[in-house]
């Protein structure tokens, strides 16, 4: 942004302030002013959104999402190249040990803040694109820890997956029902406690008993879960963290039979 003309930079700063103050009238007026300068507002907006999500600036992210809407930016492009890019940036920093969970959480809140504004505009296009793969996600029975699971959900959503979030303390049978109902591509189970790890093989056994184990990929994760444990209980993977989970599934889904073949 530093190479932009001074006048443009000045308006961007004013827009930041208006966004932080949640002053919608000022945002509208300043957006028009920015357009009038002839600057590439689309590129500026997408870059701003990515940086604001990365920094967890919820109000400012919402403000700049309003800018995106006002200038007629495609909502999917705003989501993928703006909001989700910011989430990926902070996800990478987390993977490299340069960021901590609270930073992921506030980034996630910022992303969802922007997504809330985009959602009504995206619904209209629901039938036009290809259907995203569905992931049934939840924390296993007996464990109420939500944060890790929610971060995985956020990063999966940011990467275009449709997440069916069952919440926490989810009985094994609920995972199976939800996978069948949504014709899921994957099930993602999380637990923070050693005391509830045994719920994971229970879900895997139920999938086998129901004859649908080969219809879904199973990801398991959480502090006590290791790759060895995942393989021992017959899960497909235990990603190291939320960002790796999204990356792994994004790649794995290409080699997995499509929904129509698996579920008929």
């Amino acid at each position: 942004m530093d190479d932009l003309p001074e006048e443009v930079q000045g308006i961007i700063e004013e827009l930041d302030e208006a966004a932080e103050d949640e002053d919608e009238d000022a945002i509208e007026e300043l957006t028009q002013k920015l357009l009038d300068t002839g600057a590439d507002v689309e590129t500026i907006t997408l870059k701003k959104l990515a940086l604001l999500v990365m920094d967890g600036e919820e109000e400012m992210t919402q403000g700049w999402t309003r800018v995106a809407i006002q200038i007629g930016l495609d909502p999917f492009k705003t989501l993928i190249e703006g909001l989700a890019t910011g989430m990926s940036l902070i996800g990478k920093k987390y993977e490299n040990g340069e960021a901590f969970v609270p930073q992921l959480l506030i980034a996630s809140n910022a992303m969802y803040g922007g997504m809330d504004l985009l959602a009504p505009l995206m619904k209209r296009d629901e039938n036009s694109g290809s259907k995203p793969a569905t992931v049934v996600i939840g924390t296993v029975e007996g464990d109420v820890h939500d944060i890790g699971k929610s971060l995985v959900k956020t990063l999966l959503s940011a990467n275009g997956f449709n997440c069916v979030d069952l919440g926490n303390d989810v009985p094994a049978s609920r995972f199976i029902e939800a996978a069948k109902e949504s014709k899921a591509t994957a099930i993602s189970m999380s637990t923070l406690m050693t005391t509830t790890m045994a719920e994971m093989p229970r879900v895997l056994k139920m999938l086998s008993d129901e004859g649908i184990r080969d219809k879904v990929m199973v990801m398991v994760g959480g502090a006590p879960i290791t790759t060895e444990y995942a393989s021992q209980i017959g899960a497909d993977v235990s990603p190291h963290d939320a960002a790796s989970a999204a990356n792994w599934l994004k790649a794995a889904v290409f080699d997995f039979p499509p929904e129509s073949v698996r579920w008929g």
Partner: protein
Amino acid sequence: MVAEMTSKERVLAMLDKKPVDRVPVITGSTMVKEYIEKSGSVWPDYHSNAEMMVNTVSLMHTDAGLDNIVMPFGMFIESIALGLEVKMGRIDIQPSVRSFFNKPEEVKYDNFLEDKFVKTTIDAIKLSKEKFPDAAITAFLVAPVTLAGDLMGAENLSVLSIKCLQKEKQMQKMHEWIDVALEINKIYAEACVEAGADVLYYSDASASPNLVMPEFYYEVGVPAEKELGDFVHNLGCPWELHICGDTTPIIEGMASTGANGLSVEQAVKMSEVTKIAGEVPVAGNITPLLMVEGTEEQITGAVRDALDGGAKASMLGCGTPPLSTSDRLKTWVKAVADWSAEKL
């Protein structure tokens, strides 16, 4: 060569940085299914019946051979006594807190000590002190950052922990929560020490770098733990501090709280943290799951790794898993005794 000690003498000597006859074996939570069944206790009654509680937790000392007897079973007592919703779990799943307050002013604690679960802890301390005078009677309590997190919700704690570093107003908000938590901590600590607890074992699980920023821990967590720890010391009681996850970035802060002992989990390298902690004894850090499915070789290996790394007490990295088996617990205690005979 140190003369043979009782379990209590051994634990207190370790916390006082004095020589021991063998390395103490201690634990945090002790809701072990096998012992619940063996003692004839019934779920969920053993959470609110002092006699059942003592009959169960004392088996960790009398049967498995650990040096401390720890009560209560889980980290929900403070929350349930304050009126938060708690799901009682199962015989093999610990109770968990399910709701939170919106504002610190909503937290009412005038009648905290009248709550039946708090009373059970207090009565269990008295009873176990009477029945097992040679064991280190230990109260398992929730430390201030974690209690503040239970009061406001863990996710809110995590988010506020970063926002408070950025904005003074948010820091004030954080302090309001911490102050309420500390008030409750002190009421409970005083009652436990009066009842005869030899040691207070505080878990500050939510102060972990896995949940909050290390900067936050240093700025807010350390002063809060120190304030509570000083209060406990003034009551004449030693205290231990446990924090979950990879605590390497905050171990220096943990050591500066004045805690008599630190407990760390398997995510840290023992030799690294004992070096940073310096004089402060560190306990740990055996993978808890080994008590459920570990082989003798694995258990012995984990015990020796931790002790070779400088641990002054042998402890599981986190609570004792409910499905732990008594034979594995005994293997653990034996491995510590063997190491002590060889190396002390």
